[in-house]
């Protein structure tokens, strides 16, 4: 086949028929409509069934149409792409619906009054009251846990990456791995057993200790990864200037990785902020405001949510309060995440001129 023979009727071997850009959207819309139609006709009531039928139709339809117009290789490529999209949608739906439901139900009673008042003498089945005491409790317990867990975690990671050699490092790594797997209730029971030995009543700081135990391994792991990302050349450059090792770590290694380390800490904080079990065991819960984490029972947001559901006796007011507290907790975690991202971006090694 000579080039001269290539005319309009004989398309170039490099150019092939291709579907327009909007095809996937059209196929998606078509398969959703068809899925709903089939389900309605067959009398299926579950939306999950509708969705699954639509997803299968989408993948099959993409393959069929692409195979006919574009050929088999492009069809396979499109099927792979459509699988990725289906998986993405399946992963996002629960998240979006969770946030949607929480916001829809949570905003009902979420206002300044709710945020600034405790439950006090309001009975759990009656309307009114708020979560101020739970916010205070959460902030103090999580704050103290972070103040204990984060430094120990970061220092452990520094030891493992910068100094750790031989048996001790292996043992520490092993224990960190084991700690990562500790269920939160076990951490709570461990602290509880200590409290029983010393005959202590529930108080906020006991919860902080259990939360710190849960937080530490997460911080160690993430910080370790971040420190390993710092190129060895930077350490050597600093050492070769006659800078002692500890100063090298403090002034070169940590600043280079501080963005990632803070992100890791924030994620760990977000994780413990939602812990209920150890708080239930150790802090007990308290409808009144208790600003002192070192004495007397306290509330916390997840515990408050649990207790509102558990003690509601079917009362709508308690449910509304639980949802509003959930929304507050999610907002708190999201703000932490945003702060972490902000710090990571702000502290990231600078490029550009």
């Amino acid at each position, binding site marked *: 086949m000579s080039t001269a023979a290539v005319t309009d009727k004989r398309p170039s071997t490099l150019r092939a028929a291709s579907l327009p850009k909007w095809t996937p959207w059209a196929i998606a819309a078509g398969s959703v409509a068809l899925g709903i139609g089939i389900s309605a006709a067959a009398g299926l009531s579950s939306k999950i069934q509708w969705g699954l039928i639509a997803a299968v139709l989408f993948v099959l339809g993409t393959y069929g149409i692409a195979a006919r117009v574009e050929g088999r290789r492009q069809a396979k490529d499109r099927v792979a792409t459509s699988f990725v999209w289906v998986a993405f949608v399946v992963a996002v739906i629960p998240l979006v619906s969770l946030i949607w439901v929480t916001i829809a139900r949570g905003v009902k009673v979420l206002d300044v009054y709710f945020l600034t008042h405790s439950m006090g003498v309001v009975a759990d089945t009656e309307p009114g009251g708020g979560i101020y005491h739970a916010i205070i409790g959460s902030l103090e317990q999580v704050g103290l846990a972070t103040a204990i867990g984060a430094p120990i975690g970061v220092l452990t990671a520094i030891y493992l990456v910068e100094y750790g050699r031989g048996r001790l490092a292996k043992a520490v790594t092993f224990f960190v791995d084991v700690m990562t797997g500790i269920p939160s209730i076990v951490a709570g029971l461990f602290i509880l057993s200590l409290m029983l030995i010393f005959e202590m009543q529930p108080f906020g700081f006991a919860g902080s200790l259990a939360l710190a135990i849960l937080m530490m391994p997460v911080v160690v792991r993430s910080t370790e990864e971040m420190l390993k990302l710092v190129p060895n*050349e930077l350490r050597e450059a600093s050492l070769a200037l*006659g800078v002692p090792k500890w*100063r090298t770590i403090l002034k070169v290694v940590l600043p*280079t990785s501080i963005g990632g380390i803070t992100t890791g800490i924030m994620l760990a904080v977000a994780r413990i902020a939602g812990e209920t079990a150890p708080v239930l065991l150790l802090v007990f819960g308290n409808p009144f405001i208790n600003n002192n984490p070192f004495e007397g029972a306290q509330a916390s947001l997840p515990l408050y949510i649990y207790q509102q559901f558990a003690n509601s006796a079917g009362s709508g007011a308690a449910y509304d309060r639980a949802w509003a507290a959930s929304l507050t907790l999610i907002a708190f975690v999201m703000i932490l995440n945003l702060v972490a991202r902000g710090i990571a971006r702000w502290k990231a090694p*600078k490029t550009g*001129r």
Partner: protein
Amino acid sequence: MAKRIDVSGLTAYYGSHKAIEDISMTVEPRSVTAFIGPSGCGKSTFLRTLNRMHEVTPGGRVEGKVLLDDEDLYGAGVDPVSVRREVGMVFQRPNPFPTMSIFDNVAAGLRLNGNYRKSELNDIVEKSLKGANLWNEVKDRLSKPGSGLSGGQQQRLCIARAIAVEPKVLLMDEPCSALDPISTLAIEDLIGELKERFTIVIVTHNMQQAARVSDRTAFFNLAAVGQPGRLIEIDDTERIFSNPSVQATEDYISGRFG
């Protein structure tokens, strides 16, 4: 204040692997000494034993003596940190600190060591950047990150950072191998100027470069793969390149080497 280096019977290990064996040589002050030899013969390893950076590598171990003006770097009670302040180093790939500005990079050695007066800092940074022939290119952007410079500029920034702490000896491990010919020339010119003040040891894979910049040249080789590297000979550069006393050196230089 350049200093003389006297190495005798130096052997270095990585764990149980002997990388270089029984090396002895003298490096004169205010001169440039080039190390040449095939890859893996231990040039970098030997260079790093001269400022005790070798032991930073896990398992790194050294036997033998390195005298810096009659003081043994490996003597009892010698602090490797003080050794590295006397013997500076420039690496193969430019490695400015990514979190620091150009100014802070040059000031890093002084700041991190904590022994400087604030009023001197500006002068020292300017002097070092001028010494590294970089001042004119960066004087208007001292507060910008060092990673925004070109490769050649970054390498000169690293040289400025190394000379800012006023070492006696400057070790350079293939400082031009990641650079283009123009930047290479700039660094070679710089080496010519720096040898007035420092003792310079440079590892290079580029024969012409060794011939251009160095006063003395040392040729390293290993008997076989897995064997430790050895010093074959060290002599005036002119002699090494015109009339070396060992056949292996001539083979290597003329490209007849395996």
